[in-house]
């Protein structure tokens, strides 16, 4: 049974949009829609509302929209529709938000074991930031991180990064494997990885929670394998090794789950 979630107003509901939309072909079965604007929150909100609108299936059920930060990748089957038809449809889109498009937003508390084997890059990141390890952990846990989009691999939660003041360079050579639950930073972003995968991001910690569920038991229902959606927020908090071990395998879920 999916647990009930609290519906709190998200940033998406209150933005006005003055964004400019640009559409370019991406092969014969995809379009890239980019939204241009000065306010990255306005752009992001517009991108996600546009994707939600396209994913309703009004053009054709095979049309699939993938929203990220400033762009939507729209994939389609040229047998059922055309790039031109989708372009016209997008141009008819009312960019102004309405009440019906309000996106529910939940908060997820994420315990993190920082440093050591769980976060091999923590000290290096502290060096880049020019702060102590304790201060870096404090910054990571100081705010709610907005999930901007789900990225590869396997529906990773891509969030705004901590307030480090400087971008964090990626590894020159990506690691071949980071474990499930890794918390990593790069640029001005942070990411939570549900599965073991190669990564060039800087791994600072690891959560003991189980994120990926392929048996349809995820909070957001059987249409998802992870318990979060873009627009949700993440609050990290530090745990020691004992707590980490005690929490190992507990499913990740919303703070106010029933």
């Amino acid at each position, binding site marked *: 049974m999916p647990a009930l979630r609290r519906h709190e107003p998200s940033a998406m509901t209150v933005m006005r949009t003055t964004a400019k939309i640009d559409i*370019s072909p991406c*092969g*014969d*079965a995809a379009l890239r829609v980019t939204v241009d604007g000065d306010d990255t929150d306005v752009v992001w909100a517009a991108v996600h509302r546009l*994707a939600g609108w396209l994913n309703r299936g009004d053009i054709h059920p095979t049309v699939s929209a*993938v929203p990220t930060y400033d762009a939507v990748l729209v994939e389609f089957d040229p047998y059922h529709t055309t790039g031109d038809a989708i372009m016209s449809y997008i141009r008819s889109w009312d960019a102004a938000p309405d009440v019906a498009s309000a996106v529910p937003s939940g908060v997820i508390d994420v315990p993190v074991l920082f440093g050591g084997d769980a976060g091999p890059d923590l000290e290096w990141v502290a060096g880049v930031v020019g702060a102590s390890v304790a201060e870096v952990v404090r910054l990571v846990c100081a705010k709610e991180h907005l999930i901007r989009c789900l990225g590869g*691999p396997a529906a990773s939660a891509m969030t705004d990064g901590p307030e480090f003041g400087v971008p964090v360079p990626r590894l020159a050579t990506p690691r071949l494997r980071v474990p499930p639950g890794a918390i990593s930073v790069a*640029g001005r972003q942070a990411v939570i990885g549900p599965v073991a995968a190669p990564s060039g991001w800087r791994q600072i910690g690891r959560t003991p929670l189980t994120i990926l569920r392929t048996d*349809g038991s995820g909070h957001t229902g*059987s249409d998802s394998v992870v318990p979060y959606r873009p627009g949700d927020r993440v609050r990290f908090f530090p745990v020691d090794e004992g707590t980490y071990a005690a929490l190992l395998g507990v499913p990740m879920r919303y703070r106010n789950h029933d």
Partner: protein
Amino acid sequence: MTDRPELSVEAATACVVTDLGRTSGPARGLAVNGALDQFAARAANALVGNAPTAPLIEATGFGVTLRPSHDILLAVTGAPAEPAVDGLPHPAWSPLSVRAGETVRVGISDAGLRAYVAVHGSFDVPMLMGSCAPDSMIEFGTPVTAGMSLTLHRSHPPLVNRRFGATVFDFGIPRDIGRVPAVLDVIEGPDAAEFGTGLQRLFDSPYTVTPRINHVGLRVAGHVPQRTVTGEVLSRGVPVGAVEAPAGDELLVLMRGRGITAGYPVLAVLTSRALDVAAQLRPGQEIRFRRTSATAATAAYLERRRLLDRVALRARTAFAALS
């Protein structure tokens, strides 16, 4: 009591049960995955009267040997591969009746890489978000391995008296349908301008398929166009077929298992038709990229899909008349 037929797997390597892919995946952060040669997969299901999205077997690089517990109807498509029933060869790209207890061996020739085996009634396999397509990242899927059995939804009475050795069906599939060209048609990508005049080298140089080819990507070695602009690219959704130029001397062509976001610029995108070709390329093979337009690509794609529509209609009509 139902007496559900089973397909015993006698031998298999790099073989999975798949379908056309998890089309609801990308919007939820998962790769679409599914049969890399979509045309061959669609054709196999059409030839046995299945729905286009029915689960079927994808065999990569090596063959597969199967033995049904009941009479079944199957079709083999994809890489030039002649199915043999108890050692006797039969044509691919055609419905094939196999009697209970007979052994079907599907080999793969050097002229391609992936073969598809669809069985009338299809397989009863686990689904995730409406698809059985394997996803190696989340460790979902049904590998086909020696010693296992796949449960079929139903059997099919024999259609052909094979003592006469005759093929009773001609569904209008051209004889050279399985031929794999050494040219990949691409459309210039949304970031092509970042490569300036260097982009032309993509079309002037030959490339060699490396051994690093899988569901996620196909790496080809050769001249790699360099970006003329610098600066980090914000993570964006990338389409299946995107040709990327990471550092090094190899181009990366993203296949259906790719992570849905990436930070590399997209210099070109394979056409839908070229993706089916790419699925059949073998390591060491030399290929070229050829520039085409979206209009021409769509025309070529629609021609193939309409051929499949005709095949599916003829197959359904023929099987309905016989039952």
